[in-house]
């Protein structure tokens, strides 16, 4: 068995055409978010009440909202909030889950029982209610949203990592390494984690899509990034009051949420399939 670094093999995947397109679209979205101030045609917060609630036109491609702000610019700036909040929260959740899961799986015994029963409590609440509860405790805003989403997805990363570590722990190559006098730190960092991490990373990528949805929902309840900073959920929250005379205000952010989640899913599926093929080739 040739040992390639799992991260490297993730990068070198030959994607299917669909997942390549999805990956490209994701790059475009990220570029939009990063370079929002240069790409967006107008600033996100300039109000002009004389052009409030205008339908899409050559000047304002996505129309204007009830303060006369350009919806396209706000969608582009909203990508910043929505993508960064989702990415950071999943990164937090992933690191927390991997650390707790790896410790629980490796040490077993009471550490495992305690850690897992604490983490598993989140299983018993619908993620949206859990997130709303946490934001109610911490107060609305981007930071609370990040923490809420991170906690909502913690259990899945912890469980997955734990299962992976428990399975790998019994493999011959780990026993061999142990018998050669390798310490627990070496076993964990060099032997277990590198082999356990790939599926966890794929799940993390797919979860980012769910995190975008959850972030939008929290924003819709007015719990996310606070005005005037635009987020897709927040735009739909204020836009729902204008649903009947300016439907484009909620239409576009929703389309962007849906598109990002579709692209993330398609790209993730491609990676998953490629990993699966690799795994099958290795066992043959």
């Amino acid at each position, binding site marked *: 068995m040739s040992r390639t670094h799992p991260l490297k093999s993730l990068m070198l995947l030959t994607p299917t055409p669909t997942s390549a397109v999805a990956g490209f679209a994701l790059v475009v979205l990220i570029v939009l978010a990063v370079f929002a101030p240069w790409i967006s045609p107008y600033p996100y917060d300039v109000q002009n009440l004389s052009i409030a609630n205008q339908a899409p036109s050559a000047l304002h491609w996505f129309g204007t909202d009830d303060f006369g702000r350009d919806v396209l610019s706000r969608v582009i700036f909203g990508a910043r909030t929505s993508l960064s909040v989702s990415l950071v929260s999943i990164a937090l959740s992933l690191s927390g889950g991997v650390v707790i899961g790896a410790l629980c799986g490796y040490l077993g015994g009471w550490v495992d029982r305690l850690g897992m029963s604490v983490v598993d409590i989140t299983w*018993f609440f619908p993620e949206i209610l859990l997130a709303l509860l946490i934001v*109610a405790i911490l107060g609305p805003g981007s930071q609370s949203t990040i923490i809420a989403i991170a906690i909502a997805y913690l259990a899945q990363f912890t469980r997955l990592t734990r299962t992976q570590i428990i399975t790998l722990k019994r493999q011959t190559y780990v026993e061999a390494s142990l018998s050669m006098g390798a310490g627990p730190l070496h076993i964990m960092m060099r032997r277990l984690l590198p082999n356990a991490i790939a599926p966890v990373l794929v799940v993390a990528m797919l979860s980012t899509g769910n995190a975008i949805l959850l972030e939008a929902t929290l924003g819709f309840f007015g719990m996310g990034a606070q005005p005037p900073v635009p987020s897709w*959920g927040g735009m739909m929250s204020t836009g729902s009051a204008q649903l009947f005379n300016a439907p484009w205000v909620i239409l576009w952010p929703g389309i962007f949420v849906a598109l990002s989640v579709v692209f993330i899913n398609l790209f993730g599926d491609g990676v998953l399939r490629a990993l699966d093929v690799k795994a099958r080739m290795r066992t043959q």
Partner: protein
Amino acid sequence: MLGYAIRRLLALVPVFFVVSGVVFLVVHLVPGDPVDNLIRAGSSPEQRAEIVARYGLDRSLIEQYVTWLGRLVSGDLGTAIVMRRPVATLIWDNLGYSLSLGGLALVFSAVAGIAAGAVAASYRDRWIDHGLMGFSLLGSTVPTFWLGLLMIMLFAVQLGWVPVSGARHWTSLILPVLTVGLGGTALVARVTRIAMIETAREDFVMLLHAKGVSRWNIQIRHVLRHALIPVVTILSLRIGLIIGGAVTVEYVFARPGLGSLLIRALSQRDYPLVQGCLLFLAMAVMLGTLLGDLLQAAMDPRQRDEAIR
């Protein structure tokens, strides 16, 4: 089978105590003092102290927890501070709305999802498969509240087929059920499709083909039947989630329900009501999971022995 069911039920007892403890404590983390909502402006400290004592808020947390648990056993969840009605009554009044929405949505996602998944699996890699799976991917990627708003715009306002919001007439259930159900449909369709494709590879299916049993007979009576086991698991896991998790849809359609009750209780910092709602919803998830495990064990005897360990 009965022994297995009892063991699984008993295993929930410690979980119940952990969850109830967390539910009890978490409420005290919500900033703000519920007493502020109760007293009139300009009340004297004595009047305040009297109210604090009446709700037992002056005692230690452990004391409050034990009292709460003790009352819980007799079905008494306390009295809502702001709404001034028994918590159990408030939950009961809203439960009907949540169950009718959640139940119908579940039935809808089961029927539509299994049908779509079965058709997609039978025409694997043909255009109908790609179409159905593409549609179901879309169904699970649009935000529910957004879908709800769009449906209101199209079916209630433009076409005028159903009421915009509220819960007075049965037609007002149609859009919420579709909105909640669509996300589940996508999931069920995908699980059904994959399970059927995997089952179709098994030897007994080959044998049926060799015996000359007709294709659709095999697909429906044998392949689908075997593939339903994971589908039932997915569906029963959703039971608990759908009861409280429909909060966004309740909000969009201005419907009463347990999710909305919890949100209102949270914003009013109504401790007893928040605790009651959270505990009830957590128990719904627990029982849903248990039901899923039991159904799975009933359908697949191998699970019973494995799960016991």
